[in-house]
Every structure is written in structure tokens, then in C-alpha cells.
């Protein structure tokens, strides 16, 4: 077996080491690759731009810590966009850990960047509710049917924002930042039945599935994976310069920084695929000889 052919049986720990370094180095020394915005992401941004101060979006945290690296930057960017543009936000979670960790941590952190915001007037955190599709159908008609109280235990009837928005169907847009199948439910149940525009932010691995809904017009836009999140971040930074300060925080792990890691790791994987194929053909030739 030639030296080249031996590469087919390379110890996978070398691959792990290179991927580890390709992840660690860009995190410690950010490169800052440029971001090009694609149409599916821009469509969501443009839709929110058309809204006024009385308009409301429903933001559903349908993911947990497993996909937080991809989904957290999406919800952060959407919240910054809404709060900068004076759009009201009703946040909730249909995924168990989405309510407790992602939603509460995210909305409190982002709202703190906007001292003029009033809880209950500008935004509401409804927390998590079990039940999946049944809960989704209930909250479409009447939020209080699924969430009698917000996450602080306050009855919805005492919150000014919830007094004027009975159900999700009365909002202007629903955005599901989702892992797995949740985004499909929003398109199938809420958009199909009530005509409420729906947008989805999903992990890169789920994105191919959602293109069918996007092309069919059942979703107004799609934020796919870390790449989509970095595009949304770029749109927010470009259109709302005040948000650049938050994104300049070196301790903040943004999608734009994550794209440095994704770029290096994708290149490493492609390099290994090329090496693997060269070694495969070398091995085949050696066997024939």
C-alpha cells in the first residue's frame, strides 16, 4: 500500500484535532468574514420594517440549548430589530427548555439594552407550555386559553399588551425559532388556518425541509442556520447603528463570529473529502496493480 493510499485509514483523532483547532482559533482570534444577505432572510427583515408601533409579533422559542449556538443569535437579532423599531413582542416557548433558559435569559438580556421598554406594554414573556400542536391551536384563538398567566404569574388580563391582542391570529407576524418540527406546525396550523404570516428561523440541518414551505408561500421568510442568523445580524447592524455597540462586545458570541468557525471547519471538511478521494483512488490503483 502506497503512502497516499494509507490515508484512507487515517486515525480519526487527527480529524478531531484539526476540527478542534479550526473551532478554537477563530473563536479566540476572530477573522470577520464579510456577510452577504440572501433573499429568504431579507424578506423577514423587510416585513418587520413595514410594521408600526401598534403592531405585534409573536416570537416562539421552539428550541433548547442543543441548538442554542445557531438559534440564540436569531432570537437576539429579531428582538433587537423589534425593540429598535418599536414593535411589540409576545414571546413564548413550545419547547421545554426554550421557556426556562433560552426565552427568559434572552428576553431579559436584550430588553435591558432598551431602558425605555416597559414589560407588559412593549413585550411579554408567556413562558413555556406543554402540548405542542394543541397549545398552538389554543393560543391562536386566545392566548389565555393556553397561558392563563405570564411567566411571572401575572394574569394576562392585567397586562396592557395582552388586553389588546386576544390570540396569535390577531398579531401581525409569528416567528418560530425552531429545532425539529415546530416551524412546520406554525406553517401548517397557524398560517394555513388563520392566514397569519409565519417566518421560521431554523438550524442548518432543518433548513432544506423548510424551503418547500417557503416556495409554497406558507412562510414569508427563512433564517437558515448560523449563516441566516449572521445575515439577520448584519441587517440589524446596518439599519440600526445603535445596535452595533451591543454586537461589538467581545464577550458576546454572535452568529457573525460563529461564521468564522463555520468557514474554517467547512474548509477543513472539504479538504479531508478531497484527501479521502485521492487516497481512495490511489488505493484502488495499487490494488489493481
Amino acid at each position: 500500500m502506497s503512502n497516499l493510499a494509507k490515508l484512507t485509514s487515517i486515525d480519526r483523532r487527527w480529524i478531531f484535532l484539526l476540527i478542534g483547532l479550526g473551532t478554537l482559533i477563530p473563536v479566540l482570534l476572530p477573522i470577520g468574514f464579510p456577510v452577504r444577505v440572501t433573499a429568504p432572510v431579507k424578506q423577514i427583515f423587510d416585513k418587520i420594517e413595514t410594521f408600526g408601533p401598534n403592531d405585534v409579533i409573536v416570537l416562539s422559542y421552539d428550541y433548547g440549548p442543543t441548538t442554542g449556538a445557531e438559534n440564540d443569535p436569531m432570537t437576539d437579532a429579531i428582538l433587537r430589530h423589534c425593540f429598535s423599531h418599536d414593535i411589540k413582542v409576545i414571546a413564548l416557548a413550545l419547547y421545554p427548555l426554550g421557556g426556562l433558559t433560552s426565552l427568559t435569559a434572552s428576553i431579559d438580556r436584550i430588553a435591558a439594552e432598551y431602558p425605555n421598554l416597559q414589560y407588559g406594554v412593549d413585550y411579554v414573556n408567556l413562558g413555556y407550555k406543554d402540548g405542542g400542536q394543541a397549545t398552538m391551536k389554543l393560543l391562536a384563538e386566545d392566548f389565555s386559553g393556553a397561558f392563563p398567566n405570564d411567566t411571572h404569574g401575572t394574569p394576562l388580563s392585567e397586562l396592557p399588551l395582552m388586553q389588546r391582542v386576544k390570540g396569535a391570529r390577531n398579531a401581525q407576524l409569528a416567528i418560530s425559532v425552531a429545532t425539529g418540527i415546530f416551524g412546520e406546525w406554525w406553517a401548517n396550523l397557524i398560517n394555513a388556518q388563520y392566514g397569519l404570516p409565519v417566518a421560521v428561523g431554523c438550524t442548518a440541518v432543518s433548513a432544506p425541509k423548510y424551503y418547500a414551505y417557503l416556495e409554497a408561500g406558507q412562510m414569508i421568510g427563512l433564517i437558515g442556520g448560523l449563516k441566516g442568523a449572521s445575515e439577520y445580524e448584519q441587517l440589524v447592524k446596518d439599519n440600526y447603528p445603535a445596535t452595533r455597540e451591543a454586537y461589538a462586545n467581545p464577550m458576546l458570541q454572535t452568529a457573525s463570529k460563529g461564521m468564522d468557525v463555520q468557514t474554517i471547519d467547512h474548509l477543513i471538511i472539504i479538504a479531508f473529502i478531497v484527501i479521502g478521494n485521492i487516497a481512495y483512488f490511489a488505493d484502488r490503483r495499487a490494488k489493481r496493480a
Partner: protein
Amino acid sequence: MFLKVRLPIMLTFFAGLIPIVAFFFVDGTPVVKKLSNSLEQDMVIVSGFALLLGVVNVVQGNVRKIEPREKGWFYAIVLLAGMAFMGLFGAAGAMRLFGLPGIGMMPDGRPTPFQWGSLYMFTPLQATMFALLAFYIASAAFRAFRIRNLEATILLVAAVFVMLGRIPIGEPLFGPITEWMMQVPNGAAQRGIIIGAALGAASLSLRVILGIERSYLGLDKNE
């Protein structure tokens, strides 16, 4: 016979029919809508009980591992201890027992025990497990993406184009190709899968609603 077979089938028929009728009458038929909402609320409650079933199942499965000291029995103890910790503090917090103000943060900004476990144990563990995928995907890509035949070559080329199209370095050239691949061939295939799965789900639902499929009652078709 009536209580074991006919009554459950009748209940299933009405429980299945009402949401279907309600779906097509969003603003009208308040009686149907009210019934449908009531059923959906019941479903939320029932799904809560499913959680209890899951807990019992996890306990039984892991106790069976611990008793004969099966391989990995120690991890089963860790799992049960973690579940007991989160379950007890979660339930106590939700019921406001032992002075706990809930399951989120305390008024002074410190996390409740449940929130502490969630933030500093469960969240990093879950994130770590998912992050490990990157290493295994890289290793699998190295071994699986080989130009063995036409199908494998198409798969390899598509994967490389998408990987390049989703990073800034390759995006100017491969970005439009990636978008086209996602929208056209991928979109068509996904649509076929989604429609096929939906038709399958609809036909199975109809079989259950009409009482043809009875296996969920522990019965054969002819019983």
C-alpha cells in the same frame, strides 16, 4: 363489548371529527369551536400525564440496570439522581414550597435550585453533546463521501457546493448555486416527502376515526 369497544370507538370518532370540522370554520359555528377548544385543552393536560408515564419508564429501565450491576450501571444512578434533583426542586418551585419563589430566578437575581441545575448542568451538557456532532460529521464525511458511483458522486458534489455556498469565501460563486439547489431539486424532493407523509398521516387518522384501525385499543381488526 360496548364499554370495551364501541364506546371508545364512538369517543374517538367524535374527538377526531370535531377538530376537523372546526378547522374549516374558523369564525363560525361557535359550538363546534368551543368543543374543539375544550378538546385541545384536554389534550394539553393529557400530554402532561404522558410526562409522568415517561418518568415511570425511565425509573423502571434504570433500576433494572442498577440491580444486576449491568455495564454502565453507575451512569444510571447519575441519571436517576439528576432526575430526582430536577424533579423535586421543579415540583417544589412550581408549588412555591420551602420558600421557593418558582423555578426561574429569585427576586435577588440568584437562580432557584431548579434554574441552577438547568443553567449550569443541563444546558452545558446538552450543548456539549450536540457540539460533539461536528467532530463526528467531519470524520463521517471523510469516510463516506467517496466517488464510488454516480449516485455517490452527485451526493458529494451537492454537499461540497452547499458547504462552500454557506461560507463567505465560497458564497460569491457557490451561493446562487446553493440557493437554486435548495429551492428547486431539494424543494421538489421535500414537497414530495411532505405530501406523502401528510397523506399517510391523513389516511391513518381516518382509519382510527372510522374505527377501522383498532390496534390502539389492543384489538385486532375483526374484534
